[in-house]
């Protein structure tokens, strides 16, 4: 059973990790927690659902369309909710509240549009199961895990190795200086939001497919957990976000089975607190970031 719980934990952890990458990306560039991220995650799942049920699109068409659409939503979140605040040099708290507002707006809009009842969701990833000893691993779980790792590698490559990634890092360190160096700061920030929203969309679709169920409240808990995952790994660090996500997932799963399911969230957050007490910048975070 222990191995089974590890598999369960890694699956849910991969999902947290995917959303946490988005959090970390935005935080890394803007020093801003994007509370709209959880709403984008729900919206991605619902876009695919709407495309498939209302417009009869097949999954191979609906998923890429939804990812592109979420990219556009990510752009809008920045354009409507944040751009003006940046221009006005508003305090960071205003931007934070603005993302919270945009997130709530998205959630309510979906609730009115499709209703709040739980919807059954098609499983696109149903390719059967593998049994190793007593442990059952479904292909859905494998695909979720692999997607998570691949996307982490891809996003890390872009951020740490390419020119656009380097300009993201530059913007994160000093916006004014980056602007003086000829970096288009606005473009970099917009791009970050677009990528984060696309990642949220992918994880939303994976979650829907895994549970074969979506509802409009799905973003709330995941939003909280992924935030915890990002902090645990060290906000701004992409491998840290993935590690954090997997740890939170595992802690939850093992806590729920060996302690009590009532305490599953409490256990996950207790781990977060302990790690932060020992290493305040998170597992992979750099202590000296703020000073620079």
């Amino acid at each position, binding site marked *: *059973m222990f191995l*089974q*719980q590890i598999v*369960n*934990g890694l*699956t*849910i952890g991969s999902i947290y990790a995917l959303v946490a990458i988005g959090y970390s990306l935005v935080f890394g560039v803007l020093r801003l927690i994007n509370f709209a991220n959880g709403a984008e995650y729900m919206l991605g799942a619902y876009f695919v659902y709407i495309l498939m049920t209302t417009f009869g699109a097949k999954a191979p068409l609906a998923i890429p369309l939804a990812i592109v659409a979420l990219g556009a939503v990510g752009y809008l979140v920045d*354009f*409507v909710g944040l*751009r*003006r605040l940046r221009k006005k040099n508003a305090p960071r708290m205003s931007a934070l509240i603005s993302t919270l*507002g945009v997130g*709530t*707006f998205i959630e*309510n*809009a979906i*609730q*009115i549009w499709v*209703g*709040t*009842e*739980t*919807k*059954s969701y098609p499983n696109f990833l149903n390719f059967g*199961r593998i*049994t190793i000893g007593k442990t*059952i691993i*479904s292909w*859905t779980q494998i695909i979720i895990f692999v997607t998570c790792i691949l996307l982490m590698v891809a996003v890390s490559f872009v951020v740490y190795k390419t020119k656009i990634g380097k300009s993201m890092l530059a913007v994160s360190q000093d916006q004014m200086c980056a602007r003086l160096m000829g970096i288009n700061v606005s473009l970099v920030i917009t791009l970050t939001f677009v990528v984060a929203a696309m990642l949220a969309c992918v994880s939303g679709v994976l*979650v829907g497919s895994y*549970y*074969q*169920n979506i*509802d409009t*409240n*799905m973003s709330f*808990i995941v939003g909280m957990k992924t935030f915890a995952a990002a902090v645990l790994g060290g906000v701004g660090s992409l491998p840290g976000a993935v590690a954090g996500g997997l740890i939170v997932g595992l802690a*939850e*799963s*093992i806590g*729920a*089975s060996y302690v*009590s*399911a*009532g305490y*599953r*969230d409490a256990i996950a957050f207790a781990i977060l607190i302990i790690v932060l007490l020992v290493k305040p910048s998170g597992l992979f975070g750099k202590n000296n970031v703020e000073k620079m």
Partner: protein
Amino acid sequence: MKKIRRIVGMVSGLALIVSLAAGCGSGGGTETKAETKAETKAASEDGTEAAGGEESSSDSIKIALYGPLTGNNAQYGLTYQATINALCEKVNAEGGINGRDVVVEVFDDKNDPKEALNVANLIVSDPEIVAVIGSQTSSPTLAAAPVFEEAGLPMITPQASHVDITPTGGHIFSISCLATFEGGVIAQRMIEDGYKKVAAIYANDDYGLNIIERWKSDVTDADLEIVDVEEYISGQTSDFTPLLSKIKESGAEALYIVPSYADAAMICTQMEQLEMGNVQKYACSMCYTDSFLEAAGESAEGTKVCNFIYPETTDETFLALKELLGEKTSMENIDVYATNSHDAFMLLVDAMKEVGTDGDAIAQWLTDVKDWPGACGPITFDETRHPDKQLFWFQVEGGQFNYLGQ
């Protein structure tokens, strides 16, 4: 530059307005009220008269309905709303209550006890409201019932079944059997089906705790072994695999799935994923709904579900309700949410036809009523102000509920 600013300003302004409107919508109160009124008006014949509009507010009888219209259990609340609206139209078309129109005001409690309490205070602050229907689950009903009892308003809950609800006072009635009743029925069935090792999974809320205690004691009395009982926090859990893996490991032969359909469906799909096909699933009457079959798909196959409705029934009240809802709404299958909200509403209408709108008189009438023709069997309230009911068993086969027997 200025132009862009203006556009941004306009867009965000628009967003604000829309979200405000959305807030009102989900808040229940005013909007739904206007809607219901308009609908009832259109149905009643004198509604076309210009003067009728103003007079009717003082002349009509107001009944409040509170229930989950948004959130996890929205589907149930919306069924209540649709059923009662259809019945209200019918009653008004047939002359109302002694010539007075019935107006139903709808409030959304979001299946949240805090919200239910707010809504209850809102309802009692309106002196025109004479009786109340709601809510759907035990927790919000437990929170709201004392407010109505204190105000002397008769309240009938179509569904809530916690043992502590009706003891609130003499004005509080329930159309449902006690929660413990269903726990006992399911325990009985497991015993009859010959299982030795049984397990249960339930949400840690008022309903779940109530029902699980009864089930545990009944099962233990019959010398069945309870190998595992798992609880979870409702509304915050979508990953049941850790709990189910544990239940699988415990070697349970039969599993009692206590929660309502959304969670139950997820439990079923995740059980399939963990290859727990050999565990017989038992589900409560809240799962006897098409939404459960749709959400759980193939993984629901074989699940035994109990319910208060026998679909082949020839009961006149039931058939009349089925016909009415077929005409006025998109509901094809009449579920227990429709029948129970029908019973709650029509009981109040019948009571008011005989004794008027005084709260104490209505409560007395309800207490005295004998074999009132409800949509799933005659209703007589016992000393707990719950009716006695019969349960029927179904099994999911080929994506349908097949009747097994009583």
